[in-house]
């Protein structure tokens, strides 16, 4: 079991839930199990450019990206890049 934490807009779009606990072997599997999957992945199943993902505080890109393996009890945090105005 891993935990996924969502920022406020994604939590709102998930019916008010900002925390999901689910079974997933990889980061990508965990993210694709979320009800807001189509907000963080585009129509070609690419992670949107300004969506950052941290696993246990480490940028997912330094842990193997979407294919990076997860250990039981780890926490994934989705963070919107600092952008916009």
């Amino acid at each position: 079991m891993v935990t996924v934490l969502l920022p406020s807009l994604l939590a709102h779009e998930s019916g008010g839930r900002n925390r999901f606990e689910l079974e997933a072997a990889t980061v990508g599997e965990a993210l694709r199990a979320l009800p807001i999957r189509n907000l963080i992945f585009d129509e070609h199943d690419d992670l949107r450019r300004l969506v950052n993902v941290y696993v246990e505080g480490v940028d997912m890109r330094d842990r193997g990206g979407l294919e990076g393996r997860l250990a039981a009890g780890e926490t994934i945090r989705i963070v919107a890049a600092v952008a916009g105005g």
Partner: protein
Amino acid sequence: MAVLVLAGTRKGLFLLHGDDARTRWELEGPLLTGWSIYHAILDRRDGAVYAAANNWVYGATVQRSDDLGRTWSRSEQLGLPEESGLKLEAAWHVEPGHESEPETLWLGGDPGVLFRSDDGGSAWEPVAGILEHPTRDRWHPGAGGLCCHSIQLDPGDANRLYVAISAAGAFRSDDRGETWTPVNSGVAADFLPEQDGPPEVGQCVHKLLLHPEQPERLWQQNHCGVYRSDDRGDSWERLDGNGLPSGFGFGLALHPRRPDTAFVTPEEGAENRVTSDGRLGVYRTDDGGASWSLAAQGLPEPAWAAVLREGMASDDLDPAGIYLGTQGGSIFVSPTEGAGWIEAAANLPPVLSIEVARTA
């Protein structure tokens, strides 16, 4: 009866509630916080509200509410096929389908794409006749992207509809969206390299509207002038002499019953996109565009405002109400067909779109 104004802004959706006099307004919102609402509309067939919603991180979607904005559901399926090599950049305009197709909706988007939904806005299928249009390699994005911003249905013929894309031009379908014919004959594209007359496509239409009482009549506010067509877009007449300070502008509104009456908000030009002559000036024609007169009593002066392509609307009351929203966050209403204006809301985020509906 009451009047409902749906104001899409860069930071959420606002609703303005007014009575038939349209002189007192109550503001509600923001709704859909976190989303830029490029366009929102009430579907008069069933009362649902649809919003073309965009977020710079999470992309484009369509939100639907069946309770006037209290709760929302997001479209489940919206995107472009991988083989197209394109991705949806923004959702621009939602248009409810023909009366005879109660579950059908149309959605225009960037990059120059049109979608159709037959389930009330949950799943959207790209319209191949636009996505694979043979002239697509001659379309070029403007400052707002390659946006499909205008979708107009012929109320008397469910087979016929129009779209306008900046900068690709206007297109007509006579077969419910299967095939599309460019309808840009006579429409200038001065920003393109010099050539022998206007090109087939590539025009920068800023807004296209069809008159519901005379559906063969179309109006467009273009990057290069104001135009009218009386033959379903087959030919166009340029109308921006005789009283208009500029042919450049974005906003366009039509009188609901008088096909010769239209309203525009001219801007200085493409390189200085503020309202002309240091004022927020609406101009009105009552003779099909042969002449224009200023209809700005109650609008601010001096002012250097901007009204975007979805920023004007009209209602169907008598006298007709005319509405405009500015990038400065004001919404102005004329309950008297332009004879006088009141500021119905101020200090909103930049207004991207205005639609008006009647509610019980």
